[in-house]
């Protein structure tokens, strides 16, 4: 019985990681950069929900506003901080991304203080199946994550914009020759990634409703690991890696002897997989073009 509860909880947490990982992996695939500020978008989404629910705005509306705000923020960050560095060395871009991350965290501390705040109104209660107690938010998270992933796959495979994303990720120059506006595609990618981050932040708050300035750091770094485990740049890989880490985390947490080492176990998985398969599960070997 415990096993089933853990499995559902793990899949649900994994879904959250997968959603965040999708943002990392899509941005990496298309803009060829690691957006280390991605985790902080989750935090901004969380604070946006806090602000609006504190004004007694309906939680669903607050979530929608958080998504909109994060999409705007993601696009602005890309335009202001990353776009001018197109073609610069990867190290410069990486440092900029880390800078953006600290900037967002510091801004959050300026506006909301460094303490922890509680978000109310996201608790959906729980229900029982036989002796099984399952929280509604777990199920909502799981179902939403599955829906989002299916939708994203269909979008990439069957829409013109989605195929343009694949084209840009493979060969920017050739994509331009098709008439694809590469900058626009990169912007859309950041928008999608940020929307997913805001949604993931919401689900994370449903699990534990406290928010603070580094709220996005740990899930961000775990989701990044998930993206790498699955093969960075690969959309199914991000999903696989996210779900794997989520399930491992919940099961490890349920055994009291190893629970304190859960994070260590997750990152150990990352290291082992990188040693055995450096490209991750579904990553491709990229041949360098001359």
């Amino acid at each position, binding site marked *: 019985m415990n096993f089933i509860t853990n499995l559902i909880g793990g899949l649900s947490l994994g879904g959250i990681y997968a959603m965040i990982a999708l943002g990392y992996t899509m941005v990496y695939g298309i803009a060829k950069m690691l957006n280390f500020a991605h985790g902080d978008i989750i935090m901004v989404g969380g604070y946006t929900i806090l602000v609006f629910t504190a004004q007694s705005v309906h939680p669903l509306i607050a979530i929608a506003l958080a998504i909109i705000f994060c999409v705007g923020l993601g696009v602005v960050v890309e335009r202001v901080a990353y776009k001018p560095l197109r073609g610069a060395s990867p190290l410069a871009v990486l440092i900029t991304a880390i800078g953006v991350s600290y900037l967002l965290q510091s801004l959050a501390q300026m506006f909301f203080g460094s303490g922890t705040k509680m978000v109310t109104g996201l608790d959906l209660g729980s229900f029982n199946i036989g002796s099984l107690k399952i929280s509604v938010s777990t199920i909502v998270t799981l179902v939403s994550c599955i829906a989002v992933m299916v939708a994203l796959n269909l979008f990439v495979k069957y829409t013109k914009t989605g195929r343009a994303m694949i084209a840009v990720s*493979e060969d920017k*120059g050739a994509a331009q020759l098709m*008439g694809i506006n590469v900058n626009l595609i990169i912007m859309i990618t950041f928008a999608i990634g940020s929307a997913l981050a805001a949604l993931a932040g919401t689900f994370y708050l449903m699990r534990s409703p406290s928010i603070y300035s580094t709220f996005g750091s740990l899930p961000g770094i775990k989701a990044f690991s998930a993206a790498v485990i699955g093969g960075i740049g690969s959309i199914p890989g991000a999903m696989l890696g996210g779900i794997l880490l989520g399930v491992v985390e919940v099961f490890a947490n349920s055994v009291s002897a190893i629970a304190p080492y859960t994070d260590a176990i997750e990152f150990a998985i990352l290291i082992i997989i990188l040693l055995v398969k450096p490209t991750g599960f579904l990553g491709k070997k990229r041949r360098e073009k001359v």
Partner: protein
Amino acid sequence: MALLEVKNLEVYYGVIQAIKGISFEVNKGEIVTLIGANGAGKTTTMQSIMGLIHARAGEVIYDGQPITNMPAHKIVRLGMTQVPEGRRIFSELTVYENLLMGAYTKKDKAQISEDLDEIYKIFPRLLERKNQVAGTLSGGEQQMLAMGRAMMSKPDLLMLDEPSMGLSPLLVDQVFEIIKHFHEKGTTILLVEQNANKSLAISDRAYVLENGKIVLSGTGEELLASEDIKKAYLGG
């Protein structure tokens, strides 16, 4: 009338000047070839015309409109496109999806499917492999796909960068046949080739590029007959 005019084009890689002020033009309805050895600057010229590499000085004029350093995706919409060196097909997409990417700027679905049928008629091999992932095609098939993909944008001016590179003699002949076919259908062609013999034979005019400069120009026949060209490029 000149469809494409290049005036005193200069391109640098860092401090090294790759293109040293070249001028040439392509008239409507012509096949024009740029020939030259490896490193002469042929591909650089093509890429800077297309806005893929920044030109430091000079002018590119397409159909009377200056397009110097305009982003490639905008140039494509004006009716000019390029089959890049090394084909650069999208290997994760299917043959069909690659061809659709070629029609990215087009909105009329009925027209797109008509154009698709036309391409499949010219390249029956692509129809056979329609749903195959493009990365699994042979080199020759990939070249066909790259050419078909470019034609899906229905360009007035098609530039081809080394289309015969790495192909068997039989396939090279086929590639030149197809270029002639596109030309007969009304497409103006700018060709960059190392295979001087074959390209000069189908060209109205040609330019010889050496170390980033145009050193010789003339009709295809004149250059084929030129002693200098014979020595340098035709192996005799």
